[in-house]
């Protein structure tokens, strides 16, 4: 029996529920040297903004117990060069392409989305309303339900692509935000972006990141991510995409049990470039072994 790993978001059908997370996979090219990208459910690009961004001063990353901090500062080529230079490569892939969009004002989000409209090779958009590393906008959209609603609504009104809203975990009540973006027309929600964190170089008496604070990712945050996915999935009707510290098939299955229809691998790509495809394989094997016909049968099947 070959288990059915396919999943749908909006009208888009993915061959399997494994995506690679924004900012950890560039625009796909680099990891294409390591494995056949078409084996993935989909690729999410680095966040794209209206204008190119150089990003923050180095050092931009540091390691923490079972995790890492990053303050890349949304460094990216900007929407124009993305379409010219990066999309052609992605367009030639058979895997689904999700363009992650960020901005520092609703107008910027709308402008980027408009420019992406109708471009061949794009299957969905992921709207990052949760980046902790930019001063204006970014995270603030993600921490207030009204702002989150307005931002997603504006994007919804200006795009025909299915929309995933990527939420910030740095909030008191994730469900409130999730309901707001669902109401605004999001087709799915992805949780979680990074937690705000900081590390200090005692010797130098300085922060380890030039930006002082950064975003915490990796296995350290998995418990936080699982809790948010579990709480949200039971409250919204649209699919939830889970991420945060997923390093292997077992982690992925835990998110699926907690209610995630799909999962993303972020930091895991750095530890093992083939982490994501190994999970695709692992899910297949698990379903075969446990005689599960469709992976969707597992979603939210946690016994509580």
């Amino acid at each position, binding site marked *: 029996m070959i288990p059915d790993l396919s999943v749908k978001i909006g009208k888009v059908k993915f061959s399997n529920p494994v995506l690679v997370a924004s900012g950890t996979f*560039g625009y796909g090219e680099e990891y294409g040297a390591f494995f056949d990208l078409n084996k993935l459910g989909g690729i999410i690009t680095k966040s794209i903004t209206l204008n190119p961004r150089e990003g923050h*001063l*180095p050092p931009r990353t540091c390691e923490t117990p079972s995790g890492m901090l990053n303050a*890349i500062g949304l*460094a990216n080529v900007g929407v124009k060069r993305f379409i010219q230079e990066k999309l052609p490569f992605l367009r030639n892939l058979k895997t689904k392409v999700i363009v992650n969009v960020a901005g520092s004002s609703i107008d910027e989000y709308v402008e980027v989305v408009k420019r992406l409209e109708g471009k061949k090779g794009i299957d969905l958009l992921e709207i990052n309303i949760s980046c902790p590393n930019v001063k204006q906008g970014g995270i603030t959209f993600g921490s207030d339900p009204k702002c989150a609603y307005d931002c997603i609504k504006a994007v919804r009104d200006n795009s025909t692509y299915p929309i995933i809203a990527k939420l910030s975990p740095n909030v008191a009540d994730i469900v409130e935000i999730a309901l707001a973006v669902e109401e605004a027309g999001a087709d799915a929600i992805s949780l979680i972006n990074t937690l705000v964190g900081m590390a200090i170089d005692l010797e130098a008496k300085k922060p380890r990141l030039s930006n002082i604070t950064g975003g915490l990712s990796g296995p350290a945050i998995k418990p936080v991510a699982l809790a948010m996915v579990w709480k949200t999935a039971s409250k919204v009707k649209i699919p939830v995409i889970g991420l945060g510290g997923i390093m292997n098939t077992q982690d992925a299955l835990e998110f699926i049990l907690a209610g995630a229809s799909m999962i993303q691998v972020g930091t895991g790509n750095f530890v093992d470039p083939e982490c994501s495809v190994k999970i695709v394989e692992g899910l297949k094997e698990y379903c075969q072994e446990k005689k599960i016909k469709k992976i969707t049968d597992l979603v939210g099947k946690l016994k509580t």
Partner: protein
Amino acid sequence: MNQRNEEGLLLSVENLGEKLFRLKIYSPEIAKKALPGNFCHLRVNESYSPLLRRAFSIHQVETEKNSFELLFKVVGPGTQILSEKKPGEKIDLLAPLGNSFSFPEKDENTVLLAGGMGIAPLFYLVSSLLEKKFDPQKISFFFGVKKKDEYLLVNDMVSTGIRLHLATEDGSSGYKGMITELFFQELRARRLKTKRTRFYACGPNPMLKKVSEISRKFKLDCQISLESHMPCGVGACIGCVVNTIKGYKRVCKDGPVFDAREVILD
């Protein structure tokens, strides 16, 4: 899909001095492909502490033996774990990564500057030149360390016949002071040609900052190999950047070898 996650086999672990280790690893793929300047990204164990891979320059390659070497200093948990590995263990590697040094012409002079562990990639470069029958007398190697017991591979270098310049910060052997000072003196005294000469440097950032300033001033054709914290090592995360006159560049993918005159170190 020309790159793969390689599984190397550890052949030997040598302790070359206080906290200094050399690993010999069997991997036909890497031994075949690695060029001087390339690095490998290595997972020290399967646990999450440490979580991320660690980068090390390719230090030496023995193509016939299908093996290559790493040379490193224990500075933290990752290198500590690595130093305790035993022959026969498997090593999870991504390699060869990054760009490589561009070679001099046969008739050019070569000047290399290594500070501490900066010797790792430069030693490989020198070996490659000698193997390609470059004249050892046209190769000058400046090697600086803090104190004399940090010297490494000096005998190996002496026996090749290249011109060796040694310095220790504490003056315990050779020139007393930073290797860049000795280098600068030799330059100013015009004991080093700058025309038709290729310069190469690797070492701690403060040293490379000096080298890059000198290179701009004397218009040296100088390549430096940089270090940076590298989450992915393959160019995907944009985490390891260095500032250059052309904007931020990824050390792992656009480097680790850069033109010294273009890099802006702070």
